[in-house]
């Protein structure tokens, strides 16, 4: 469903990967592995379309995402290194605005329930900058339950999460995949059993 066709990427004139092809189907969890600086984040950003590859293309359901971005973005959920939340707004406001931008309707009740599910009961109205790093990560993660998207691209989503948070996220990924979704994720910790079956893709560090 999501395919990278011979993508090449270079950063600061160093080639990270060349002619890389990748195909991820529905119902698959792809675990992208590699040392620091290998280009995992760059590859994920190319897959989302935030970065343009030097060469090659990315296709979603057979269509080039640069030419038909809207169809892809309706089905895409990306969580990067940055939280995507504004520090002066509360979690509720942040998520509310985000849902409005992504054209997803959810009522207040659902928002409260989701924030409760990720363990932020009572912190919904606090400006996000007063939350801890782990709590801010949980606010970002609530999006997983709020937007019905088939493709999840998660860049080191386990950062700052405690043990319970990690377990929650892994079971969410397992759930999503078993319902026909697609997850591409990267992490420095190994995925445990809770994440279910997954395919590993190794990215090497090129000199």
């Amino acid at each position: 469903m999501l395919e990278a066709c011979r993508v090449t990427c270079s950063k600061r004139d160093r080639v990270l990967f060349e002619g890389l092809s990748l195909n991820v189907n529905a119902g698959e969890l792809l675990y992208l592995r590699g040392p620091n600086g290998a280009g995992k984040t760059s590859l994920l950003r190319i897959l989302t379309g935030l970065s343009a590859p030097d060469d090659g293309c990315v296709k979603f359901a057979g269509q080039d995402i640069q030419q038909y971005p809207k169809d892809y973005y309706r089905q895409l959920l990306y969580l990067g290194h940055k939280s995507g939340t504004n520090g002066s707004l509360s979690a509720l406001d942040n998520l509310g605005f985000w849902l409005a931008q992504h054209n997803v309707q959810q009522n207040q009740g659902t928002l409260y329930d989701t924030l409760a599910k990720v363990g932020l009961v009572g912190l919904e109205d606090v400006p996000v900058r007063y939350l801890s790093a782990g709590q801010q990560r949980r606010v970002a993660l609530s999006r997983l339950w709020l937007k019905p998207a088939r493709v999840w691209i998660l860049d080191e989503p386990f950062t700052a999460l405690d043990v319970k948070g990690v377990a929650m996220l892994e079971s969410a990924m397992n759930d999503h995949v078993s319902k026909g979704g697609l997850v591409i994720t990267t992490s420095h910790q190994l995925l445990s059993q809770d994440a279910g079956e997954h395919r590993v893709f190794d990215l090497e560090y090129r000199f």
Partner: protein
Amino acid sequence: MSLYAGIFKRDLHIAFKQKAELVQPLMFLLMVVTLFPLGVSPAPETLQRIGPGVIWIAAILSSLLAMERLFRDDFQDGALEQYMLSGMALPAVSAVKVAVHWLVSFVPLLILSPLLAMFLNLTYDMYIALMLTLLLGSPLLSLVGAIAVGLTVGLQKGGVLLALLLIPVFIPLLIFATSAVDSAALQLPYQSQLAIIAAMLLLAAALAPFAIAYSLKVSQN
């Protein structure tokens, strides 16, 4: 349409939570204007002569300072990435953000302007001309400035570089705006200067959103 209204609301919401950041450029403007009577001469004729130029130069400098907040927070906290992945057209998003930024910086300036006119001994006609030039010229500052802000948003040391990039580009606006107010001082018509500023504004309004969107994409890469 309501998608973009959402951005409008969000940015206004954030702006009101960051009131301190909004007031500072205005204080800067006021202080710079104050420097001129102190540094040049408090004589009323001198101030009236240099007044339009002083206010416009101070307006340009303070808007350069204020402009940085246009995309900086959204870039650093990742909200900009989420905008780019939302399916909304980035030029439209940029246009809405610039519009909010302009509203939030111009309305206080409007309120402050009689004080500035009084400090520099401007006549009533000059004041009207000044307000008209600011009304037409400040959106131009925001629109064109946003292009350079988009390019420098990812850099650590954005500030002075932004000024270096934008000041040459703002010179025509400065020339026509001050000339309009000077003409008003001499009771001469100044529609032609306003028309030229309006033409530049329309050109910017048409092209700048696309340039801003491209700049933001360059910064994201």
